């Protein structure tokens, strides 16, 4: 438990917004804003300023609909999601996440919910009637799925998967999307539906409680129930409801749901799209196609959006859920890990791993463990546990000074598992999902004698305790 007692996690998106407003982490915009890039430009600038989430209440062409943007793109908002005070420190947020996610709480199914106040089906479906921004100039379309929960199901095991994947409007009844092919949804589609030439039922959920969104973005293993994880993160069961057209289940507190199917034999142009790496990379236009059959939403829905790019929601939620998952992976691999940090400045390409015992062998072990089914991290720093992994200044200092440029760098080529969005990959590498990851041994060699390891020239390391105490006790009297 953290220094301050954790409160209850927000029960739905609207209560989350109220909590954020009270902590100064939500800005409300009442002036009319155009969905065609103006809204995206405002949101992007605010993200880069580490500013609050934004609630746009008046959107051109869409009276009665509003948009909640960048729900968890700062650590403050991640803290509120977990019921912590907004000023909680990053290690405290990790600690609280680990405490909550280790106690799964199964969901409770309900029969009705506010997200069914409006139901549109069949030929009346027109996704363009939902306030969907053209976020960045040059994107391939209007992205409706950015801060969303995408639900699909393994037809053989019955496992219902919640994930967060991008989807854009292609036309009135079609969305084109790009779940990373080795993602859970990508694998289920390619292994279980396409070979049988069957459409895959799918639901795209917007504006659910933040715990459910956090669970959907987590790097959990195949078969783990994200609805139960959401319950664990929330500290109470999440109410789920069944789709109208399939047996998929999703958070009943959602604002809006699109039900449909991924077609096994039809495609459309998807992307490009400026994403979490902070670039629009051009990932070869090889996506999937969803036919939307039903739209349900609350009256006056508050839709949700992640204004993707540098330091977006993906960066924070991956740093949190992904960081914990990486730690577990490393523990299973036998790495003496003491902490993991995926800083948002590294855009899910940089992973910092603290270890109690380092050296090249351990660094290689870390590299191998983090380059399996998916290779998101292209740079991995393995640091001694005397380095505060959450302090980037300390980490860069250690990297620059302790890592031997020749002996301390290990590079591994990957084929088929690389992230096609990684900006430094060329087009040919993207199409093969080929790339590389580099691990840097930022630790003192275990073979070195302790008495010969360089001593940090820092206040806390190079002065006797009595001198430090005297200096600290008299600090103000020096005139500072």
């Amino acid at each position, binding site marked *: 438990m953290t220094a301050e007692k954790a409160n209850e996690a927000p029960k739905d998106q609207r209560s989350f917004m109220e909590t954020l407003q009270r902590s100064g982490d939500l800005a409300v915009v009442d002036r009319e804003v155009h969905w065609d890039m103006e809204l995206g430009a405002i949101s992007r600038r605010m993200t880069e300023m580490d500013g609050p989430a934004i609630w746009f209440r008046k959107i051109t062409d869409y009276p009665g609909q509003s948009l909640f943007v960048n729900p968890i793109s700062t650590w403050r908002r991640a803290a509120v999601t977990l019921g912590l005070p907004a000023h909680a420190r990053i290690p405290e947020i990790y600690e609280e996440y680990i405490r909550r996610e280790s106690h799964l709480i199964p969901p409770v199914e309900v029969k009705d919910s506010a997200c069914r106040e409006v139901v549109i089906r069949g030929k009346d479906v027109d996704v363009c009637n939902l306030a969907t921004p053209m976020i960045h100039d*040059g994107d391939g379309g209007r992205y409706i799925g950015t801060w969303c929960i995408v639900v699909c199901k393994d037809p053989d095991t019955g496992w219902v998967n919640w994930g967060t994947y991008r989807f854009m409007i292609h036309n*009135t009844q079609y969305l084109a999307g790009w779940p990373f092919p080795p993602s859970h949804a990508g694998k289920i589609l390619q292994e279980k539906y*396409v070979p049988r030439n069957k459409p895959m039922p799918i639901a795209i959920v917007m504006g659910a409680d933040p715990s459910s969104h956090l669970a959907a973005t987590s790097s959990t293993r195949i078969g783990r129930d994200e609805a139960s994880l959401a319950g664990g993160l929330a500290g109470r069961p999440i109410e789920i409801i069944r789709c109208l057209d399939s047996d998929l289940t999703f958070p009943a507190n959602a604002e809006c749901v699109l039900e449909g199917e991924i077609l096994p034999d*039809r495609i*459309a*142009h998807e992307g490009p799209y400026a994403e979490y790496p902070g*670039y629009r990379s051009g990932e070869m236009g090889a996506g*999937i196609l969803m036919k939307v059959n039903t739209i349900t939403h609350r009256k006056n829905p508050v839709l949700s959006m992640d204004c993707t790019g540098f330091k977006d929601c993906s960066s924070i939620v991956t740093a949190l859920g992904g960081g914990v998952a990486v730690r577990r992976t490393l523990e299973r691999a036998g790495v003496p890990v003491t902490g993991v940090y995926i800083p948002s400045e590294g855009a899910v390409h940089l992973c910092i791993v603290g270890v109690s015992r380092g050296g090249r062998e351990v660094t290689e072990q870390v590299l191998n463990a983090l380059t399996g089914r998916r290779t998101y991290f292209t740079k991995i720093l393995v640091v001694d546990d005397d380095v505060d992994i959450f302090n980037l200044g300390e980490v860069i200092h250690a990297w620059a000074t302790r890592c031997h440029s020749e002996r301390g760098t290990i590079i591994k080529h990957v084929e088929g598992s690389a992230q096609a969005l990684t900006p430094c990959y060329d087009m040919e590498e993207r199409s093969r999902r080929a790339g590389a990851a580099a691990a840097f041994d930022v630790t003192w060699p275990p073979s070195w004698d302790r008495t010969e390891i360089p001593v940090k020239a820092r206040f806390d390391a190079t002065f006797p305790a009595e001198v430090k105490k005297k200096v600290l006790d008299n600090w103000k009297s020096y005139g500072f």
Partner: protein
Amino acid sequence: MEYESHVKHFKDLQENMLVVLTIRDLTPGKHKYNARVARVQLSRSPEALANWDKLWVLSVVGIQDPQPWGMKIVEELGITIPGKPYSDIYETLAKM
């Protein structure tokens, strides 16, 4: 009317060629950017630019060619096209 399309290489488009593209309608309003597939004729002749629809072309990373094309829709090919999920849309369009 004005449209836009992302293409793999600007140099693949040539004067008077017929090509299959995903075209997005730029008419202002709620249906702006809706896409469909069409076989089109492209030209940068003064007549085409003055009298045909206008097509703005963007690269695979969304950089716009500052010089538009005149575009004539020769054949509407529908909203979606045949293909397996995750197959390369550019290769599929080129075969149509």
